[in-house]
């Protein structure tokens, strides 16, 4: 155990966990990384490409190396960062990306083959033979690629989402964030403070510096105690703001129960959308390393992380440690480790004028030029003035300076700007509106400067919002200036890693430069730099500096790549929102849904609706048997179908008639009260939009029906026309689709059935003729609407009652109609009935067809203007010869398939000879064979001719006779009896 004294872990409790099947112990407050280091487990994984042994590098969310498969079974999650995984009792973790044991990874052969695996290897190598790519190369590369593995089981946990609103969002709970939140919350503003860690404090927890001459945790505890008393402040720990979106909206993931073995009744994570008037980014900074030969061995870490492990987690990665630095921050680590009793092999400082700040050997003006140790660091090579010497050490802390975490301030195409003084990119202009930056994220590296900048940023933001705020009394803190020498990598022949996770070395960047992949966006894609799960947080700026050095340009001239969400990885489960299966999306149920289910109906999705597709009966073993029975029963007696799904729009107003006249292609103004008319709507471009009926219930009152599929679109279209095209018309629209349960009562005995439910109403042909409508009562006083319209071609009605009575009416009609053969039918039979009658539906109104093609060209009135009327007369549409025809196979045993294309007999089936297509098809029990509807060139003149339907997908070719589109009662006599 390499535990030190102190730290913010609870030593009174012990937690057991396992890594690669071996048991270990840690304490509450540990992360998996700190607990592994405390158990002397430096080797935690293998690198992506070369399968090099890798260990923990950082102490935060920037970690590129320490990725594990966390948990097991269905909860196994690959690529989980050990550095931000809170330790819990029973935690199970496994290393990933190796074949065989972690210590003897067979794929480490890749490291020996490294000369062949330089950047661009795949692009150049797998060019030929071309045929090998799909069958051989790609599967092999895919097998070798990737890090962790998926469980391939459904995620057993629940995920949630939510919405928050505030005046000020503070992102980050370190020195600057705490000062900002304190300032804002005291003012009474609505404030949300978010931090990705499970404990507030940020770097304050990792440093030994005092605040007001006392440990920082004391000040943090006081602030947290005050926070708890402020109802206008919401503190969200374990929550990462991952993106800045439009209109002051930020995306955040709260890891509600990631720190527990199983969530129990809790959700696993919650996706929050936070809408804020102003935001402060106080996300701190990420330390950068200095590439040198073989700098990727387990034990080589960031010096700041090494300090964090010592101070917060009471852990040192080794008993004997060295530091490689170009600034005073490395010395700070050495001092803290010395104070904790760790042996310092030396501080190697690139600055020749560096001064020792404590009791440790100093190598000023020196660099670390190589390292040794197969599975973990054993020695480092120190070069000074051309002289080299090897130092023994088990860990090396590297400090190359700090990069402000500018990510969120660089969303919305914001570009960071280079600070020569800080030798780092700092937030620039053009980022998310209303976002200001404070603390180390702004380049304010000292604790004192961070505290002040956080408080001032909050005050300024509130002043902008008109909320008076005063600065709190802040504690005294260290305020050391930054002393950094620009030093980006140690030159040398062996590989020096820049991006640890994607195995990108200085050599790869040099090669990119040679191959002219010099712009940073090319560099990134060609070498895959910064494209791993860590998005190159510890690598990108260093890589830019190396490229700048090669090109002779400055770093700002070299530029940065684009910053995009997410800041850290977000699981697809939490983005998906949680519901799956039948709750995946809202489902609309018809008023008779439960009744139909009780009858054993099979349901089908129709857009958002669940509709009864057919009602199987005992003895029916195939759906066709049920559908044929329903169709024949309707044609012979009476069928009942819930048609509530058709859109119903209540249109009222003094100008309702004029409005509808402009909406429909055919005249609607002349419709008499108590009558229904079939109507066709066109789009602005002249193509057919939708069809349906329009009923006039009163002088100023109409009801428009639409197809089920287009109900929403047509309502939107009507509202657009009302509000934007003709605001001068007095028209009011209300969707009443849900309000009325509507049942189609179709068949020669439909009148006889309805006569049993209407209250004193004359249903005779004279009293209520075809295309009549009326308000009436049924079943002793229930308000209802009756329409004599037909989709089936039979004598038929549609009766509407308030939705809550739909089930009762349906059951009553079935019961009363028993002797008449009353049969409920579903959407399949509905489709057969309408195809037999030759009625157009969604398949024929698919946005590519015109009134003329549908055989309704003369419906487009020339006596008035309407939406699309003028465009329907344009040359391209008028010249269209394809029209709707019926199709019947010469051999009645052969199928007719919707989607098949039509060709003249003997013509080769290709685009040039295409003469149309089949839109709808079914088996017609009335005809005794399959039938179809389709659009055929010069179709009207080709009745009786034989054409060929080609269905290349199923290698079918069927001869069809062209017939009129009405297979049933072409004269329409049945409708009018």
């Amino acid at each position: 155990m390499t535990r030190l004294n102190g730290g913010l872990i609870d030593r009174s409790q012990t937690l057991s966990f396992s890594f690669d099947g071996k048991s270990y112990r840690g304490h509450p407050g540990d992360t998996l990384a700190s607990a592994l280091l405390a158990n002397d487990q430096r080797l935690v994984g293998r690198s992506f490409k070369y399968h090099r042994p890798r260990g923990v590098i950082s102490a935060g969310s920037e970690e590129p190396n320490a990725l594990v498969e966390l948990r097991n079974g269905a909860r196994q999650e690959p690529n989980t960062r050990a550095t931000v995984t809170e330790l819990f009792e029973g935690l199970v973790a496994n290393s990933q990306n190796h074949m065989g044991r972690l210590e003897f990874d067979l794929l480490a052969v890749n490291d020996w083959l490294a000369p062949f695996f330089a950047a661009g290897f795949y692009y150049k190598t797998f060019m030929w033979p071309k045929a090998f790519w799909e069958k051989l190369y790609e599967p092999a590369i895919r097998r070798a690629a990737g890090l962790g593995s998926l469980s391939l089981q459904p995620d057993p946990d629940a995920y949630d989402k939510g919405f928050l609103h505030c005046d000020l969002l503070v992102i980050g709970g370190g020195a600057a964030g705490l000062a900002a939140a304190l300032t804002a919350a005291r003012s009474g503003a609505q404030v949300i403070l978010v931090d990705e860690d499970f404990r507030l404090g940020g770097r304050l927890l990792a440093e030994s510096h005092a605040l007001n001459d006392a440990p920082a945790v004391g000040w943090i505890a006081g602030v947290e105690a005050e926070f708890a008393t402020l109802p206008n402040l919401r503190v969200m720990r374990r929550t990462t703001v991952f993106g800045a979106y439009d209109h002051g909206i930020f995306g955040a993931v709260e890891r509600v129960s990631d720190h527990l073995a199983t969530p129990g009744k809790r959700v696993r994570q919650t996706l929050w959308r936070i809408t804020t008037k102003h935001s402060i980014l106080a996300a701190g900074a990420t330390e950068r390393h200095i590439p040198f030969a073989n700098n990727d061995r387990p034990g080589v870490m960031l010096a700041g992380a090494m300090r964090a492990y010592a101070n917060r987690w009471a852990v040192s990665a080794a008993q004997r440690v060295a530091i490689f630095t170009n600034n005073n921050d490395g010395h700070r680590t050495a001092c803290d480790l010395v104070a904790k009793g760790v042996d310092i092999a030396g501080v190697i400082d690139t600055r020749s004028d560096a001064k020792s700040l404590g009791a440790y050997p100093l190598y000023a003006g020196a660099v670390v030029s190589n390292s040794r140790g197969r599975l973990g660091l054993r020695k480092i090579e120190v070069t000074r003035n051309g002289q080299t010497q090897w130092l023994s050490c088990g860990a090396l802390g590297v400090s190359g300076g700090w990069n402000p975490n500018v990510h969120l301030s660089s969303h919305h195409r914001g570009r960071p700007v280079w600070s020569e003084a800080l030798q780092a990119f700092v937030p620039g202009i053009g980022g998310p509106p209303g976002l200001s930056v404070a603390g180390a994220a702004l380049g304010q590296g000292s604790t004192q400067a961070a505290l002040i900048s956080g408080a001032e940023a909050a005050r300024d933001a509130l002043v902008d919002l008109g909320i008076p705020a005063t600065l709190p009394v802040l504690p005294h803190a260290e305020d050391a200036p930054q002393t950094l020498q620009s030093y980006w990598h140690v030159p040398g022949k062996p590989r020096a890693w820049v991006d640890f996770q994607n195995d990108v070395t200085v050599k790869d960047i040099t090669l990119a430069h040679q191959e002219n992949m010099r712009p940073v966006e090319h560099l990134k894609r060609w070498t895959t730099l910064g494209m791993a799960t860590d998005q190159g947080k510890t690598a990108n700026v260093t890589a830019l500096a190396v490229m700048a050095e090669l090109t002779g340009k400055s770093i700002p001239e070299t530029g940065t790549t684009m910053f995009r969400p997410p800041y850290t990885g977000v699981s697809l489960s939490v983005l998906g929102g949680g519901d799956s299966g039948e709750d995946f999306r809202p489902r609309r149920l018809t008023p008779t849904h439960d009744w139909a289910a009780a009858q054993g109906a099979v349901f089908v999705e129709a857009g958002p609706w669940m509709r009864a597709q057919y009602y199987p009966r005992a003895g029916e073993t195939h759906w066709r048997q049920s559908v044929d029975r329903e169709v024949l029963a309707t044609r012979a007696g009476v069928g009942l179908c819930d048609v509530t799904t058709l859109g119903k729009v209540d249109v009222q107003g003094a100008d309702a008639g004029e409005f509808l006249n402009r909406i429909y292609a055919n005249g609607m103004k002349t419709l008499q009260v108590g009558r229904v008319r079939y109507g066709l709507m066109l789009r602005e471009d002249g193509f057919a939009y939708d069809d349906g009926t329009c009923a006039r219930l009163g002088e100023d009152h109409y009801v428009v029906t639409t197809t089920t599929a287009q109900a929403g679109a047509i309502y939107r279209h009507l509202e657009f026309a009302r509000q934007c095209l003709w605001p001068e018309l007095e028209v009011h629209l209300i969707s009443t689709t849900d309000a009325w349960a509507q049942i189609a009562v179709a068949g020669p005995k439909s009148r006889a059935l309805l006569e049993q439910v209407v209250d004193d109403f004359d249903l005779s042909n004279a009293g209520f003729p075809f295309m009549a409508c009326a308000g009436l009562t049924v079943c002793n006083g229930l308000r209802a609407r009756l329409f004599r319209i037909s989709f089936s071609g039979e004598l038929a009605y549609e009766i509407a009652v308030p939705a809550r009575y739909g089930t009762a009416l349906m059951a009553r009609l079935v019961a009363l109609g028993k002797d008449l053969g009353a049969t409920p039918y579903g959407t399949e039979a509905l489709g057969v009935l309408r195809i037999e009658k030759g009625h157009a539906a969604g398949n024929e109104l698919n946005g590519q067809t015109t009134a003329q093609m549908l055989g309704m060209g003369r419906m487009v009135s020339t006596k008035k203007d309407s939406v699309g009327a003028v465009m329907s007369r344009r040359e391209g549409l008028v010249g269209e010869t394809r029209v709707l025809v019926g199709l019947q196979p010469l051999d009645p045993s052969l199928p007719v398939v919707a989607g098949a294309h039509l060709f003249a007999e003997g013509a080769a089936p290709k685009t040039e000879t295409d003469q149309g297509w089949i839109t709808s098809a079914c088996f017609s029990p009335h005809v005794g064979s399959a039938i179809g509807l389709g659009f055929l060139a010069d179709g009207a003149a080709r009745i009786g001719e034989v054409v060929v339907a080609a269905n290349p997908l199923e290698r079918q070719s069927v001869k069809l006779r062209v017939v009129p589109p009405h297979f049933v009662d072409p004269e329409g006599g049945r409708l009018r009896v």
Partner: protein
Amino acid sequence: MSDLKPITALGGAVSRAQSFGALSIVENSGLALASLALRDGMTPPIPMGLTLPGPGGWTTGGDVAAFWTGPGQWMIEAEGKAEEDFAAALAAQVPGGFVTEQTDGWVAFEISSAAGEGPIRRLMEKVVNVDVAGFAPGCATRTGLEHMSVFLIRRAEDRLAIIGMRTLAASLWHALETAATRLQDHPAA
């Protein structure tokens, strides 16, 4: 009175009601709804003694209440009058206005808290993107909830009504039940 028996939007013979700790959700199947639109230039009426609210508002007067749905448009609510021809009664009060029967177009869930406004606030945070702090009693709005369009009415600090499309009642209940159950299991979550 018809001899047909109605069912509620959730398909039951009686309204569904369920408690989730401090929160309870009740399907209000007795609520009658009718929309009212004014003719051009018409002076806003005071139907059934009700002062019609402005944008984003809801007013109540005894058993009837109204919320704003658009310029010159309101939805009028009448408690316990679903079985009456409320639209006709309203039309009689507003000669010349355009009234549409809407009772069966919607499902109304009345949500109440036995522990003050906290549970209402937390439920709203989980289901609707509405600034709870600015949604005081007397506010009404239309918004999305799990991809469904709903009306929200803050009837009191501790009472919220969610009115959604009737055919989506089961999906809306599922969404509210899921959120309320999670709040019951972890009130502070």
